[in-house]
């Protein structure tokens, strides 16, 4: 089935509810539907066709059409199709039916759209603020075009986050707000009865940087990749790559094959160093610092290699719309191979040592259980999903860069525990080494950057996605005038994976909480949210500041 056939089947089902239908190539379907049919179409896609909900986005199109554009994104992984579901709602009544009751994974993003654009999801089970700061004014929606990107509302007094009381009989263990797992600000209040976790309270969103707003108001197409790269401090290249792919697809720019291979090599180098970093951190979390020291030592030559290739050890700055800025010269190929061989050898030694280490196994095996069905319902991606038996991997499902020409394996384990997620990453690291070797061997000669003579016309749209070390990174770009996107939507993998943490914690011992949280390889800077989690029922609720102040919970 291709995008057009999928679109036809939706059209057949819903008739004139489908206002507009267009396929951008075989892998992307754009549907515009009437607002009253949104819930039924979303349900049809999610339940009947088995499409995975990705994210939701709101665009202020009052200048062009006098309306707000609400967009839901779905992915049909088996058929390799991304579905963009548009609905337009009027300026006078900025409301849209909520799909969360039937598609629970939409919970967070619908509220984010409300906070940022001001379109209310009617019927949302928890229609409260989620994203903006506690003292942000109620009537200012940052992503509307008439709100300046550098607006600074006056800070309000006395709006510090009030703390929740634990359930009857439980005690509180605070983890955070500084450095709960990785070195990022996030605050978990864990409620325990004895050793057992019975609930948790989570406060995030200390780091909102308004990046999407900058991309559509202050920067130009070729400036955005650099800020996109800074969304994440560990796997930034995936974001710039994903953004560039979205713009290239929207504008019909073809990246030269050598450019695609170079992107692939850099992405895999990034995956290796990210997985190595994660393993070190995981060792550190469970109190086994030898792992941290040794794995990071193994990782360091790779960082130097990246510095030689790109000019910087972490933020490579290689991506631009149309290709990459730097070639990987033949002289450096042998050095790349040498570094990879070194890592491979030491990795193998480590891999052989781990299964016999009873300390490690005791901490990883059987802890942080995330059942397959829960992972699917909560929209988990990446190693978190693959460790729970879900065979999804963007590199195979929605090939980009040069992955359609390379041997990529999906590494799936069905242990559903912290060990399974660890093993997925261990295997993938070795796979990445082989992918880079193959790419170096098969890399064609030629240009690395496409020639772009025409400006990008406004009103085009496309999706770009990349399999980051943590899972699927998803970017959507709607091109605009003035040499910049009109709307740029970003979804980092932790946004999806963090929703899987509450069921993981349930029933675990307190000592396992850090490694449970750590096992999704969280990237809080990308995700920053505030919520309250009732672990016993798995319900996620978000409280407003007023409620918290008045303790109406």
């Amino acid at each position: 089935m291709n995008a057009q056939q999928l679109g036809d089947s939706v059209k057949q089902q819903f008739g004139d509810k489908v206002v507009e239908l267009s396929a951008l190539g075989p892998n992307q379907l754009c549907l515009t539907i009437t607002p009253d049919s949104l819930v039924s179409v979303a349900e049809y896609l999610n339940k009947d066709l088995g499409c995975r909900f990705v994210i939701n986005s709101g665009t202020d199109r009052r200048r062009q059409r006098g309306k707000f554009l609400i967009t839901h994104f779905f992915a049909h992984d088996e058929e390799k199709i991304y579905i963009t579901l548009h609905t337009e709602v009027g300026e006078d009544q900025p409301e849209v039916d909520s799909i969360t009751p039937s598609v629970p994974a939409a919970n967070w993003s619908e509220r984010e759209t409300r906070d940022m654009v001001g379109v209310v999801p009617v019927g949302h089970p928890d229609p409260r603020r989620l994203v903006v700061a506690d003292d942000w004014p109620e009537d200012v929606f940052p992503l509307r075009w008439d709100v300046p990107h550098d607006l600074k509302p006056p800070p309000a007094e006395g709006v510090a986050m009030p703390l929740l009381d634990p359930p009857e009989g439980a005690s509180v263990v605070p983890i955070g707000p500084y450095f709960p797992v990785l070195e990022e600000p996030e605050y978990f209040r864990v409620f325990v009865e004895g050793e057992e976790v019975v609930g948790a309270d989570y406060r995030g969103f200390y780091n909102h940087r308004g990046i999407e707003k900058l991309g559509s108001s202050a920067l130009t197409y070729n400036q955005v990749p650099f800020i996109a790269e800074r969304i994440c401090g560990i796997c930034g290249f995936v974001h710039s790559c994903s953004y560039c792919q979205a713009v290239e697809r929207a504008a019909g720019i073809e990246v030269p094959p050598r450019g695609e291979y170079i992107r692939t090599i850099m992405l895999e180098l990034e995956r290796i160093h990210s997985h190595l970093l994660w393993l070190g951190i995981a060792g550190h979390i469970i109190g086994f610092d030898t792992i941290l020291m040794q794995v990071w030592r193994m990782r360091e030559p790779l960082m130097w290699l990246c510095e030689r290739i790109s000019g910087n050890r972490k933020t490579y700055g290689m991506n631009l719309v149309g290709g990459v800025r730097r070639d990987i010269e033949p002289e450096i190929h042998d050095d790349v191979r040498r570094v990879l061989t070194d890592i491979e050898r030491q990795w193998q030694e480590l891999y052989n040592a781990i299964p016999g280490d009873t300390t490690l196994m005791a901490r990883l095996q059987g802890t942080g259980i995330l059942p397959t069905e829960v992972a699917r319902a909560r929209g988990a991606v990446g190693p978190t999903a693959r460790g729970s038996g879900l065979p999804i991997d963007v590199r195979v499902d929605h090939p980009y860069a040069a992955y359609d020409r390379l041997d990529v394996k999906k590494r799936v384990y069905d242990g559903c525990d912290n060990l399974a997620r660890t093993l997925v990453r261990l295997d993938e690291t070795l796979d990445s080494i082989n992918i880079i070797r193959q790419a170096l061997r098969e890399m064609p000669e030629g240009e690395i950057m496409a020639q772009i003579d025409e400006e990008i016309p406004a009103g085009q749209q496309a999706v770009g996605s990349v399999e980051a070390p943590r899972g699927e990174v998803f970017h959507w770009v709607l091109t605009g005038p003035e040499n910049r996107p009109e709307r740029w939507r970003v979804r980092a993998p932790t946004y999806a994976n963090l929703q899987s943490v509450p069921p993981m914690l349930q029933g675990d011992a307190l000592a396992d909480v850090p490694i449970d949280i750590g096992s999704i390889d969280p990237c809080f800077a990308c995700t920053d949210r505030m919520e309250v989690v009732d672990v016993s029922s798995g319900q996620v609720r978000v409280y407003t500041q007023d409620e918290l102040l008045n303790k109406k919970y």
Partner: protein
Amino acid sequence: MITSKLREAILCLRPGRVTLKYPFEPHDPEGDFRGYPELDADKCIGCGGCATVCPARAIMIQDIDQNTRRIVRFLERCIYCGRCADVCPEDAITMTKRFELSTDQGREDMVAECEVFMATCQRCGQCYKPPSALDKIMEPGFRDDKLKRGGDDSPYEPI
């Protein structure tokens, strides 16, 4: 368990001591490192291409009068991407290997200014050749970028 610990011990012992003596011994970056962007004022023609492409908006172009264009670079904003060096038609900007740029002299120390004599220039923007249509000059003609030094909370007056 024992063999596993032995394997781990070998893994630790084999590489020996790896810690570098930096900063007591210099550790120069390899390859085309992107460090401090040096501007050769003699080569600069004041086309404004660098300010157009700079993602961090670290470069401000200001026309003081018909004769003089001032290029102010706020290096505290610089992200060392090297785009300015890429697009400069005169190769006036080079990315050096200098990376030890911290200062105890305050933010003023991170501001670099250069004035270019432009008496006969009509500011048509033609001397800048954008590498792609996406890097075209956004503001040809006389320019007075609104960028303030370091943002609203900066101790500096807007220029």
